[in-house]
């Protein structure tokens, strides 16, 4: 297993980790108790996916880095997550749109990863697929309820979609790392997931009386380590305790 394998797993694992951190920001602040619990539950599942993938990436790297070393001791430029997941929580509409675009992606991604030549990765994906099915059901439900809701909720969903849509396409842009990892049958080719993703997104947006925005120039770079300024702040908060007390046990 070469470096491309580690990179390819970090691209997925880091996306899960950063989104989990974002979602936990809602804990105690969500619009209703049930939603507070739902977002925390989803964060917990997604964090579980991140832990499995980061642990496996560390094993394949063979440099002695475990999940904690990878999560807490890398700087922003070493993270390989999609730009989408580091975008701020915004209002609830932004959180819902970000979650839906992500869930619609992972719904396809896990199917592909379940066929991975790496048995550990396939096991993580097989399990994650069942959990993500509940996530996409939840976020799709909110997209429809808010999009086809009141004038105010519709307006907010339109604004969220306009803000976040330019980050939606990065997940499907292949580069040489992906091609090498696909040759090793470790991961599915990112672009191969676009068609089913679009089908689901179009269907749900139509139900929600929201237009599918035209394709912009997709914002990109997260998967190569070039991030928006938001990630550094997120990591600072996530990593501060571990960095202040390295190796501490209790």
């Amino acid at each position, binding site marked *: 297993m070469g470096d491309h394998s580690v990179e390819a797993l970090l691209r997925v694992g880091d996306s899960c980790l950063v989104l989990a951190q974002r979602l936990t920001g809602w804990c105690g602040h969500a619009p209703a108790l049930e939603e507070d*619990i739902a977002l925390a*539950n989803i964060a917990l599942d997604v964090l*579980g996916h991140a*832990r499995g993938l980061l642990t496996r990436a560390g094993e394949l790297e063979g440099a002695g880095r475990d999940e904690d070393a990878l999560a807490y001791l890398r700087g922003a430029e070493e993270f390989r997550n999609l730009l989408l997941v580091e975008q701020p929580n915004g209002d609830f509409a932004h959180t819902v749109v970000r979650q839906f675009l992500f869930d619609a992606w992972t719904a396809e991604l896990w199917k592909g990863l379940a066929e991975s030549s790496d048995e550990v990765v396939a*096991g993580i994906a097989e*399990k994650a697929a069942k*959990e993500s*099915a509940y996530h996409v059901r939840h976020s799709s439900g909110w997209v429809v309820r808010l999009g086809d809701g009141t004038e105010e909720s519709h307006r907010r969903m339109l604004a969220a979609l306009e803000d976040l849509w330019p980050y939606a396409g990065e997940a499907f842009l292949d580069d040489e790392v992906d091609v090498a990892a696909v040759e090793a049958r470790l991961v599915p080719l990112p672009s191969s997931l676009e068609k089913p993703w679009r089908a689901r997104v179009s269907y749900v947006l139509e139900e929600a009386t929201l237009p599918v925005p035209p394709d912009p120039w997709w914002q990109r770079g997260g998967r190569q380590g070039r991030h928006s300024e938001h990630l550094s702040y997120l990591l600072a908060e996530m990593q501060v305790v571990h960095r202040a007390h390295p190796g501490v046990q209790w």
Partner: protein
Amino acid sequence: MTVETAWELLAEVPDPELPTVSVVDLGIARDVTVDGDAVVVTITPTYSGCPAMREIEQDVRAKLASRFASVDVRTVLSPAWTTDWITPGGREKLAGSGIAPPGARMLPLLVEGRPDRCPHCGSTETEELAGFGSTACKALWRCTSCREPFDYVKAH
């Protein structure tokens, strides 16, 4: 020491979040092998992010260490845990403590499962309040007959 001894001990290890059922009832304990006074137990998490997994591992280790000199607890993800592995006895214990056991899985419409009946009054007239509940494996439902809310272990 026999495999049966190990399974009997495991049946006394409660799930930390659903203490009315054991790790055997829930299908978390998957496999046991015994060689002399050494035991190897394989466990699997219900959900990827289950925060109770570490506690379960420690509880299993402590319980088996009471009889076995060497205890090895291994965690596997595949095959993925399913609510089909909850034993009939486990389902009865859940219902007896007011938690509806999972309904039948309806693949591929996995997420459309529903409780068979209200664990309080037995009515089949129930509705979902929230898809996510007090732990990763549960949803919050309500009985429209007796009006009581209840936890439901999601078909998975």
